[in-house]
């Protein structure tokens, strides 16, 4: 009998505590920039697509909800021909962001993606691409990689020497 009364008392006491519940959607929660929500594809400082179609996000994905096809433009720069995320399967674990060697794929603090039709949760590249650099400003993969692409020849990346003249006999 006593324990029942005590329980009722404890529950009643909670009536006067500060509320944890937020009046969503009228009131929006304050999320950290590192929150793992809707996935985006970001762009280089020069505006080009950051994604080089390396497939690492797809292979890191534990629910296999990313699929893409890499292709190349006439200058040798790689980009995804299509890039599809099935958000109805995504578990927002962020492994894709971890795996991405070019900072292209990033998770954002947006979680308001509910749909009445599951088909609308399939996002294509056009839906994923944002116009900015996201959380990692300044990074440009091709400035680090050794591959020559249009506008960046061999030897013009960071920490690269001029291409070797193989006819030279100098030591």
């Amino acid at each position, binding site marked *: 009998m006593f324990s029942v009364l005590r329980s009722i008392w404890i529950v009643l006491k909670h009536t006067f505590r500060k509320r944890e519940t937020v009046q969503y959607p009228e009131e929006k929660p304050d999320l950290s920039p590192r929150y793992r929500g809707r996935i985006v594809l970001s762009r280089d400082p020069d505006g080009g697509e950051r994604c*080089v179609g390396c*497939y690492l996000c797809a292979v890191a994905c534990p629910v*296999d909800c*990313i*699929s893409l*096809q890499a292709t190349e433009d006439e200058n040798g720069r790689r980009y995804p021909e299509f890039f599809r995320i099935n958000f109805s399967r995504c578990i927002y674990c962020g492994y894709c962001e971890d795996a991405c060697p070019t900072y292209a794929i990033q998770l954002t603090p947006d979680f308001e993606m509910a749909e009445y039709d599951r088909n609308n949760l399939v996002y294509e590249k056009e839906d994923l691409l944002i116009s900015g650099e996201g959380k990692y400003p300044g990074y440009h993969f091709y400035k680090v990689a050794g591959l020559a692409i249009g506008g960046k020849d*061999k030897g013009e990346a960071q920490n690269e020497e001029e291409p070797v003249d*193989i006819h*030279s006999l100098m030591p």
Partner: protein
Amino acid sequence: MPTIYIDDNPYEVKEGKNLLDAVLSLGEDLPYFCWHPDLGSVGACRQCAVIQFQDEEDEQGRLVMACMTPASEGTRISIQHPDASQFRENVIEWLMVNHPHDCPVCDEGGECHLQDMTVMSGHNYRDFRFKKRTHRNQDLGPFINHEMNRCIACYRCVRYYRDYAGGGDLQAFAAHDHVYFGRHEDGVLESEFSGNLVEVCPTGVFTDKTLKRHYTRKWDLQSAPSICNHCGLGCNTIAGERYGTLRRILNRYNSSVNGSFLCDRGRFGYEFVNDDARILTPVMKNVETRQFEEVSEDDAVAKIAELTRDKNSVIGIGSPRASLESNFALRTLVGSNRYSSGMSNAETELVNLSRQILNDGPAHSASLKDVEKSDAVLVLGEDLTNTAPMMALAVRQAVRNQPVEKAKQAGIPEWNDNAVRELIQDEKGPLYLATPTNTKLDDVATKTYNAAPQDLARFGFAVAQFLAEESPKVIGLDEDVKSMAKSAADALKNAKRPLVISGTSLLNKSLIQSAANVAWSLCANGKKAEIALTVPEANSMGMSFLEGQGIESAFERAASDDIKTAIILENDLTRRVDSKAWNQFLKNVENIVVIDHLENETTAAADILLPAGTFADSDGTLINNEGRAQRFFQAFEDDSAVQESWRWLQGVLDLGKDTDVSDWYSLDNVFSAMTKSVDTFKGDIVVAPDAKFRINDQKIPRSPYRYSGRTAMKANVDIHVHKPPQDPDSPLSFSMEGYSGKQPSGLTSFFWSPGWNSVQSTNKYKNEVGGELRGGDPGIRLIEPKRNASPKYFTEVPEPFSPREGEWLSIPLHHIFGSEELSAKSFGLSKRAPEPYVALNPSSAEKLGLQMESRVSVKLDGTEHTLPITLHENLPDGVIGLPVGLPDFNGIPLPNWSKISGATE
């Protein structure tokens, strides 16, 4: 068997190996770069360092390179020793100094030996903060992509390309850390085996350019064990698919067939599978408009069943590029006496003769491995590089056997590659080439003889005569030809494993007969002689097992009998018969039913056209030139109506109700029905594990467990993830689910082992390095020689060739790129195919008053072609060569007499 101690544990290893080989054969991991199972050791990369101890007491030890140290009795080494592993880590660190940060955009990533070895050695953080050296790349043609920045200078590429494959146009340039591997200038790599650089290069310097056009990582490919269908050798391949298209062909190790390598036709000839000209739905010709109209599968099958109700009015024309099962289904439908092999009469006769020689004679039919192991070779008539490319590569290795034997006697182990090469220099074992014109093997030949086909056969008969009295005499042979025949006979007689190679490419019966005489006479001398006879297509030999008649005979039958319907199976007949005969045939036969996978002139003439599967989207069995039955498995299943030809025919047979085909729901049952009802197959033959085969009750997966994108790849079409397609024909699953250990040999869809993502993981699937796959090499030989049979020598020696006045004997010249029907339709290969030409020797050209750039008109069999000339120094007088299989030459029967004259344009 010596015992060696690795980290104090005793292991028995095979005699005469080096430590690296022994350690890898034992299944241990030890990093390496410059060593390759087929190229031997040079000790260049310093990666496979281990600590070797003097004896049990020795605690200090010394650093040695495992690949350069023999695994002799009592050798004590430590792989785990901190000094050794530190050394290996440092070596990798130095190699990585200039290696670019390219992995995300590098096609090798995910199957890179350098990545694997870096992880294995423990070097996981880059400290180098200074400038990296860079190189400019070269354009190496349509097959190979070049990215020199990634090079770690292991020298494997030039050792493979120059020393192993005999190529001349890839070399190391410059010095120290500037060393550069490439051509002297941009240009197509000349070797027909350049594609192997993709697998030989431990990193991404040489990558597959055809794969790059539709790039997919290794882990994303759904693959199946396959058999190359671009020549008669039956090399084992792995076909990899993604998003419904075939992405690439990789080598599948099989020690008794192709070993570690493939030719460029086999590797890059796959793209016809993705061609726009693929037939995807059943169509029927509208009677009035003569246009194709789509029909349902059931309607098409029912219509064919109706047409074939009267058995006597149907003929079936099979195909040497279709599987045994499909051909057998057709044979069952039309009856064995109305079934044609789909090869010309001449070809059918030659292939049957080949099988008879291999089957009834005492000489063993040589596998590619046997060719590689032979130590004296006589080639009669075959330009191997173009007709059976991998055999040419095997012959290149065979000529090293006698000199290497000398090196062994000098105490140098065979694996010590540099030392062996230093000792033998340019010395070559005996290789006698008798071919109509010069070939790419001439540079390693002891002697070459270029003559007209019948003269080559006479040469062969002469060699046989020197070896056995009973073999017929050749009268009126030139002295120098006679002396060459004598020296060839002596070389073969003195060899341990003599080999005779001939084949069907010149369409000359006497040549094959003379080759048989040589091999049999060697057997009569007590030699274990081998004979290798090349056949034109992937299943030519299989056709001889099914005993169909030639096309011309089938056409005659269509003309004389009351034939109303012809069923043509995966065969473009316009490539095989001349247009006159073809048009006559079309007039004679009311209904043409064609089952094929690519549109061609024959499918255009069809009244009913059914879509068949290619090697990549169907299963089946092929018999190669050696008589080895091998199974290829379906790599992918798509939503179209494409299915195996035998499945279409099963539907027709089922409606016809004459034969009980109710159990033909799986390939195994069709195959066993065939072995039971066709006499040439003796009894139960097991080519591959049957569809019920399971390991731990699980199927064998077609994809690695890292296969990605499963729930997204079709989400744009349908959000629901469907059950993967079922496969009634094989124990393989269309998924990454299933038994996760190593696949059994013959069911290997991909080579992978923990820590070994590159093709080097193949070593983990073998009993020993360079040996058989665990569980035996897949495939089964259906032809075994009668060792004790006394040879029945062929006695018809042909007359010598005499040039005719005003007429020229035109002989077929084969091209690795372009002569074969399917591969020629592939994007990369089509760029390497030659333009049509006519070849003749310079003196004939001069007589006709022709210049280098002249065009001539060739009158052949009622048709006239205007072609540019190509001068072949060694082509005999009175003979011209015409390229085979190029569009302009379809259906022209060769060899044939033709007239040529300077073109009047």
